[in-house]
């Protein structure tokens, strides 16, 4: 399979992540959309590491390195975001992102 097939899969995943991010009102579901988008970006990194033209040094590894860093940051992001969501739920009894507008002027 060529590069294009992976890029198409990644684009589909990214747009589904956007749908999830924009239309969901549950904060945890919004996080799931963010995870979908991060996964599609990682897939792009790895696909370009496999198919991209690099120097004579053999297989490129840089894309995989970027994907690893991205996975680590995603793990940190999910931990912090879920802590915030739990705290919001504890305080105002909802995680509907449309209802949590206490700071709105």
């Amino acid at each position: 399979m060529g590069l294009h097939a992976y890029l198409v899969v990644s684009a589909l995943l990214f747009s589904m992540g956007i749908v999830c991010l924009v239309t969901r009102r549950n904060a945890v579901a919004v996080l799931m959309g963010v995870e979908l988008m991060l996964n599609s970006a990682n897939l792009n990194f790895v696909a370009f590491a496999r198919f991209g033209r690099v120097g004579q040094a053999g297989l490129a590894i840089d894309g995989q390195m970027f994907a690893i860093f991205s996975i680590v940051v995603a793990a940190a992001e999910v931990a912090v975001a879920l802590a915030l969501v739990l705290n919001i739920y504890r305080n105002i009894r909802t995680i509907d992102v449309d209802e949590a507008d206490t700071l709105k002027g």
Partner: protein
Amino acid sequence: MAPTEIAFAILAVMAVGGGAMVAFSRRIVYAAFSLLFTFLGVAGLYVLLAADFLAIAQVIIYVGGILVLLLFGVMLTHRIYDVQLKVQRIQPILGGLAALVVLGVLLVVVFTTDWPVVEPRAPVPTTARIGDEFMRQYVFPFEFVSLILLVALIGAALIARREEAGASSLEGVSPGGETPKREPTVNLHEEP
């Protein structure tokens, strides 16, 4: 069809189908569980892309860590057996439109750009090379990202931690700390 093409088709359908379930499923628990298929499908695509270490890391971190955290979030904050009928809103239309526009732009870019591709070589194990790169070219990002992870996890534990006894903002929460005694008064349902 070559075996790799069949494997690619299965994995791509798995990933994209799981993603569609995440985006369009009416129930939040189904969305969380179908995220499992997406993560596993992407891990399989990593295998096809000769990224063996990354595939295992994907399974361990995403499926074993992030998905479990998300399921905890769902279970702790949502009454999972409620079904809510769809409410007519402008949001899904606009969101779907925005996603379609982004998808169109991405596909146009994918198919019109002249990517400098090469024929991939035979797969070799990548773990040793990744470890080598961590200690050479990427040693500063490596240390920095470990610091980020430490700070984020300490911060998450601090934010999610229950305050000391006597805090007035926690009334209605059982001392054991798991479930609220009071039924939530505000609408918690997922309304896509």
